[in-house]
């Protein structure tokens, strides 16, 4: 039975303290909602049934983009559309603006937030349809079986669950070395992006470190990569609305003589977490930015991939995207 949300209590706190209190009160029975673009589907499909929904949209402290001495601070409740259009983001971190602008569709970007985008749950259709798989707390995986429909699933990091990160902005956060500021009633902690996202081996029911009482407050982007050479590309079934089959985000510093001085390159939708391509980085650092370097780098991009029945195509696709990222950024 679809399209009818089960009942829940809706809270719309105006400040963070009230929100945190509510979260503590309802514990695992509470659901934090930002733009609702991930949340509402779960409710309508009746696959998640929280008792209380805490709507964060009334909390001003979570909104907006600020320049600081260290770089940029983006409130978790800032919409993707705002980020895509923000002049500072565009000027300094064009990579993020591009990626935010490639999420879903204009409608979804207008309400969907950056906090929600990096915290969204897996888009494995077995899991989304409410089946009792590992990720849902059960004891089987439907996608990883020989008959499983796993075209969208992972090449790397499988651990019982083979779902991938579906986010277009998550790889950018890892590439730009973003920091995630998280608050709970116990206080604040700050984690680097590559610690924020977690795989099934760490916790099979979570895509991020967020625990029930946690709120993602801000994402800090350090100035380190401001103005670097960026490359972002996403391949999907359609150029709007669809989740990435593979995406790539890279930030690169190139010396005047054309030699790649420093680089971070990350692929999404190939693993449960954004996959940083260390081997590629090692190969290209110190080499000239050209076709040969790109081709060499590409050949190592998918090293160690363990494809499933229907996602072999992701290997050459990933290689091609990496090649372009090195060559064309």
């Amino acid at each position: 039975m679809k399209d009818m949300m089960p009942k829940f209590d809706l809270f719309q706190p105006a400040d963070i303290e009230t929100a945190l209190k509510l979260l503590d009160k309802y514990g695992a029975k509470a659901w934090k909602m930002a733009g609702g673009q991930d949340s509402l589907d779960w409710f309508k499909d009746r696959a998640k049934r929280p008792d209380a929904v805490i709507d964060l949209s009334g909390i001003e402290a979570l909104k907006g983009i600020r320049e600081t001495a260290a770089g940029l601070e983006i409130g978790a409740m800032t919409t993707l559309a705002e980020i895509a259009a923000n002049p500072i983001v565009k000027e300094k971190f064009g990579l993020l603006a591009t990626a935010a602008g490639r999420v879903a569709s204009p409608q979804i970007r207008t309400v969907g937030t950056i906090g929600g985008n990096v915290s969204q749950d897996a888009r494995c259709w077995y899991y989304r349809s409410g089946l009792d798989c590992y990720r849902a707390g059960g004891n089987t995986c439907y996608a990883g079986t020989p008959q499983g429909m796993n075209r969208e699933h992972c090449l790397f990091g499988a651990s019982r669950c083979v779902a991938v990160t579906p986010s277009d902005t998550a790889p950018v956060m890892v590439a730009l070395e973003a920091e995630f500021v998280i608050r709970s009633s116990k206080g604040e902690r700050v984690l680097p992006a590559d610690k924020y996202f977690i795989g099934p081996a760490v916790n099979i029911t979570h895509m991020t470190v967020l625990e029930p009482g946690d709120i993602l407050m801000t994402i800090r982007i350090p100035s380190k990569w401001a103005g670097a050479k960026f490359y972002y590309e996403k391949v999907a079934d359609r150029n709007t609305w669809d989740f990435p089959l593979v995406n790539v985000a890279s930030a690169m510093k190139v010396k005047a003589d054309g030699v790649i001085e420093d680089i971070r390159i990350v692929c999404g939708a190939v693993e449960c977490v954004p996959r940083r391509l260390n081997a590629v980085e090692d190969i290209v650092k110190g080499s000239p930015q050209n076709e040969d370097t790109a081709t060499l780098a590409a050949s190592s991009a998918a090293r160690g991939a363990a494809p499933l029945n229907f996602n072999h195509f992701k290997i050459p696709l990933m290689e091609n995207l990496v090649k372009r990222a090195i060559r064309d950024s």
Partner: protein
Amino acid sequence: MGNFGIGQAVRRVEDKRFLTGAGQYTDDINKPGQLYLHILHSPHAHADISSIDTTAAKAAPGVVGVLTQADLDALGIGDILNLAAPPHKDGRALEVPARPALARGRVRYVGEPVAAVVADTLANAKDAADLIEVDYKELPAVVDIADAAKPGAPLVHGTEAPGNVWTHWQLGDEAATKAAFEKAHKVVKIDLINNRIAPTAMEPRGALAEYDVATERYTLIQGSQGSHKLRDWFAKNILKVPLDKVRVISPDVGGAFGMKNFLFNEPIVAVVASKLYGKPIKWMADRAGSFLNDAHGRDQINHAELALDKDGMFLGLRVSSFGNVGAYLSQFGAAIPTMAGCAMLVGAYRTPAAYVDVRVMMTNTAPVDAYRGAGRPEAAYVMERLVDKASRELGIPAAELRRKNFIRPEDFPYKTALGHKYDSGRYAELMDAAYKRADVAGFETRRAAAKKNGKLRGLGISYYVEACAGGQGEQPHLKFDADGKLTIIIGTQDNGQGHRTVYAQIAADAFGIPIENIVVKQGDTDEVPTGVGTGGSRSIPVGGSAVRATLLKMIEHGKDIASNLLEASAQDIEFDAGAFKIAGTDRKVSLKDVIGASFDDAKRGDVKPGLYAAETYAPAGATFPNGCHICEVDVDAETGELEFVNYTIQDDLGYAMNPLLMEGQIFGGAVQGLGQCLFEHAVYDKETGQLMTGSFMDYTMPRAGNTPRFNYAYTEVPTPNNTLGIKGAGEAGTIGATPAVANAVIDALSAVGVTHIDMPMTGLKIWQAIQSAQSKSAA
């Protein structure tokens, strides 16, 4: 001709209402005390129902009643009718299996309505539906043509249709075609899949039914393509009551594409329940329900062969097809792969001999019926891909091969080998115009430039011709009020096209009155005496010509009144620019005065009172819209992504009544055509028979970012077959686009050695085709 006259790009008079949310669609209408109907769909593709236990559901909060087919049978409710029964080639009639509104003992596709709950709220109805216990005994199922045709395949209707073949139908001259192939210099063959698609109207189907005890009358509010058909079916076939006991009202309709022509299960239950429970009953499909139980479209396999002589002249065409019509015959289901489109297989070409045979297959899937184009897109796709393949195999450029074989202007009216009589056309001239506008001459340079950027550039052309706007006539009623307002009452049904605007334009033009003074009424069988409805692009060609014929009759009546006012003989009176004049003089009387006099016994003379008329107009024959689509695409070989570079259309839709609305029809139609070609595919799982594409997450609709900017132009070659010379625009875009886009993709991929790919040509499929061609060439 005034500013609002025919031929002007008048904006839709409907726009303001629709764009400000003031439209009234079925779901916007609510009746006091209405109850809500929810349908329980079959979760199985094929199963016997041993029992249905509704006890718990009936006891659930808010539930007023639960219905199964046993209840409908006890009430004597009729089954859903079938209206198309193409005979077997040996002359046997087609057996039409029963199609009850709710499953009778067996379910035959996932989503088939099984039981119905009526409750005070929709939520209660849905919750209660979960409590219905249906005891199913699952049976093996078959969902696609290939499997259904295999020996030993599960039989969807037992022995009623052996081998799951409803009918094996034929058209054309088999012997003459065989002879043509025997003398052929070259035979070109192609095997094609015409993918199954879901119609996905923006407004899902719905119904609001009410029964009035005092008058024993049913009123059904339902978005449709013609309320009279529905009324007749409900009265005669379903309820078995006199016609006047049923009133059907179609309010605003948010898209139909053929699918809202048909009689479906759920409205029947709503109508029955409205009497049974004595309350208005509302039912609205949700999107998931639409995917499951709307009639789907296409789903054919075609094997086609073209015989050519050494100069590339077509000698004969032979096509052998399979059409999947689903688990039951929807009203016109069996006609779509057969009678509806096959005669168009010869396309725009002089093909002296042709023969078609079609097996109409049943499977455990939702019924398949007309979808925008209904048979003609399938035909155009087959022929235009075949001609392209012939062009490649013979090394004759696509345009040259087409031009050689085109029906020439002097050939019209042209009787084809498959029996149609084409009305008019200037095919070669239109193709040349399109080539020029698309700068085909510069294509190779552009292709080379694209290659430098790592892109595979492709150019695809189609020259489509289709048949529409023939058949039954339409009988509008037109009347002036005393204050000069004109009402046009007509039995066609707008689904968003803008009929009100165009009918009003026709009348504004003739009477010289402003468009605001004209009201168009449609959709209510109590208000509109008769109507055939909207389908087959007929409304403006036939409905428009009928409005014209009727208003001419009114003008004659006006002349009688004017002759009395002017004391002249009616023969001497002419009507022009809003006034009745005595020919050759300046003595005249205004339309307004004539209208006034028409209500004035003292002034109007010895004629019937009022200024009104009704007239039946039937077209002399079908019309044959045609045109050239040229599509230029870039394929990214490293990702499989496709981008439109240019898209040029040169159409002949006959006389262009309203170029703006005509373009709207063509653009929307072309997007539907490219949607089928590149994205859309309704897929059932072969093992379980489950619909895999049950939401917009899995059923890939084209979005704005996937569509080209159309470079549009048209040439008006009027049809002699209706008085306005209009050929029809509703389906042409869809019919032309699919083969043009497909040919462009194949042309792009030909650079890496790919010669064939089936629809939908998704990024993944394109990419895989490139990969396997590359690994083949590497090996």
